């Protein structure tokens, strides 16, 4: 099905989507780039002036920038590790026959539906709060000092909360993939004398690579811009221990109202995100075509 007519039609059909996304990318981004070269504080209207690369200079040279960069990566990697490894284990478990499969699946899937603000509030107040939270109550009941999550491991706590939200997603995709594993292949390996571990390592895991890449791609897209969880729990602190790039940009442009600096930060974040994107696409492209 490839006549000249149908090819022209195809181009026509993609164009609305392409044009919209192009506008969506170019217009605000263009304005952001423009702002990033201005000294522009929202609280001092009419004082805008051209500053060249100053904003970029200040943004990159502040100590928080490198910390934020590190935190962004830690957050993405941490959540990916937990969700992928946890997701595989959980998918393996749920793929076994057991009583009440449907109900357990409903329970496991639930966190995915909870909005980030709510999940952060729930974890922060009901669980991780060192005085009234459930963990504190349990620690006290066991005669231990309650652990102060957001002070002792701020980034870790956020990783935990975000991972909780994304674990169901990873689990579901991996479970679907597991169910598509050819049972004859497993039987063949069994005939070949492969034990449980060997079968997992030599068959299941390679079978899952495609799905794992997809999980990584999709989650990375969302994890690079984690924001609500930080805003609700730690506000990026203590210090900047849990500030990631989006939050740093938020601080700059919406807490200090330094739109110029924030825009420069935004552009830097876009560039970094695209570096990650290109890197990911390479990996995915290879994996998805195979």
């Amino acid at each position: 099905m490839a006549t000249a007519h149908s090819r022209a039609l195809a181009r026509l059909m993609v164009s609305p989507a392409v044009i919209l996304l192009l506008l969506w990318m170019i217009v605000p981004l263009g304005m952001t780039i423009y702002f990033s070269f201005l000294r522009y504080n929202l609280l001092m209207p009419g004082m805008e002036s051209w500053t060249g690369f100053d904003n970029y200079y200040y943004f990159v040279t502040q100590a928080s920038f490198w910390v934020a960069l590190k935190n962004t990566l830690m957050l993405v990697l941490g959540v990916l590790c937990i969700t992928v490894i946890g997701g595989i284990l959980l998918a393996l478990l749920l793929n076994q026959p057991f009583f009440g499969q449907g109900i357990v699946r409903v329970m496991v899937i639930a966190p995915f539906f909870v909005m980030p603000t709510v999940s952060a509030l729930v974890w922060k107040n009901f669980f991780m709060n060192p005085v009234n939270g459930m963990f504190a109550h349990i620690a006290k009941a066991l005669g231990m000092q309650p652990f102060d999550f957001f002070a002792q491991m701020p980034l870790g706590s956020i990783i935990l909360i975000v991972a909780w939200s994304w674990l169901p997603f990873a689990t579901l995709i991996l479970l679907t993939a597991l169910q598509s594993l050819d049972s004859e292949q497993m039987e063949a390996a069994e005939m070949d004398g492969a034990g449980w571990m060997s079968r997992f390592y030599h068959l299941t895991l390679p079978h899952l690579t495609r799905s794992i890449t997809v999980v990584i791609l999709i989650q990375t897209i969302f994890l690079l811009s984690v924001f609500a969880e930080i805003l609700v729990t730690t506000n990026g602190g203590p210090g900047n221990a849990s500030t990631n790039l989006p939050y740093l940009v938020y601080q700059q442009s919406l807490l200090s109202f330094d739109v110029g600096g924030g825009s420069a930060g935004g552009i830097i974040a876009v560039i970094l995100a695209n570096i990650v994107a290109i890197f990911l696409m390479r990996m995915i492209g290879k994996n998805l075509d195979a």
Partner: protein
Amino acid sequence: MARKTSQTQRMVVTIAAWTIGFLIFLPILWTIILSFKTEGDAIKTPLEVLSAPWTTASYAEVQSRSNYAGHFMNSVIISVGSTIIALIIAIPAAWAMAFQPGKRTKDLLMWMLSTKMMPAVGVLIPIYLLFRDFGLLDTRIGLTVIMTLINLPIVIWMLYTYFREIPSEILEASRMDGASLKNEILYVLTPMAVPGIASTMLLNVILAWNEAFWTLQLTTSKAAPLTQFIASYSSPEGLFYAKLSAASTMAIAPILILGWFSQKQLVRGLTFGAVK
């Protein structure tokens, strides 16, 4: 491989699965439980909480303070509306990419996805200015447009992967049968992709429903969805666990129920072409 899985093994799996499932679900369950307690009881130890009397007072309080119905309707309109618009734009695009692939199709798709990586905070001020100039602040239309744009790449990608599983012979058959392009998409492609479209819709309704940055920034009251509703409870003063729980429960309940009812559909579709 239907050999006897020993009864004990099955029990072990059952216990493990239930325990883990319960732990994962606990935060939600606990929120629901707390929402039916008084503020005083809600901060006690777990055992005391469970034995405390039940009350719906917090719901009444939350209801009297906020216009839940209004926020709820806005959430529904914005998330469903943006999903439908995204589908209308995405179906033809995905059709073209799946059935008329060119050398650049893959790159195009990846480019689309990469637009999702743009950090929203970085472009808030420009968008705010644009919205102000077009009179879109605090309008459902404005927010719907933003949600559409944010979710469009994912919608296109998901549809693209479903469409690719449809044999192109069927579309050719319809063309031989005299169907115009419109009819081909309307009568053949779309109905065949119904499961895929349904799960795409679900996922995007969920994502739009839970989106908490743009919804908070671009709306105030008339178009404010449930994320705004929950924001007013996010750090209120004094004893507040019960009210916060009630508000949280009310904010997530609709999507949770929708998700549970349609989870088969959702799960079936959540493969992003990863399962061959």
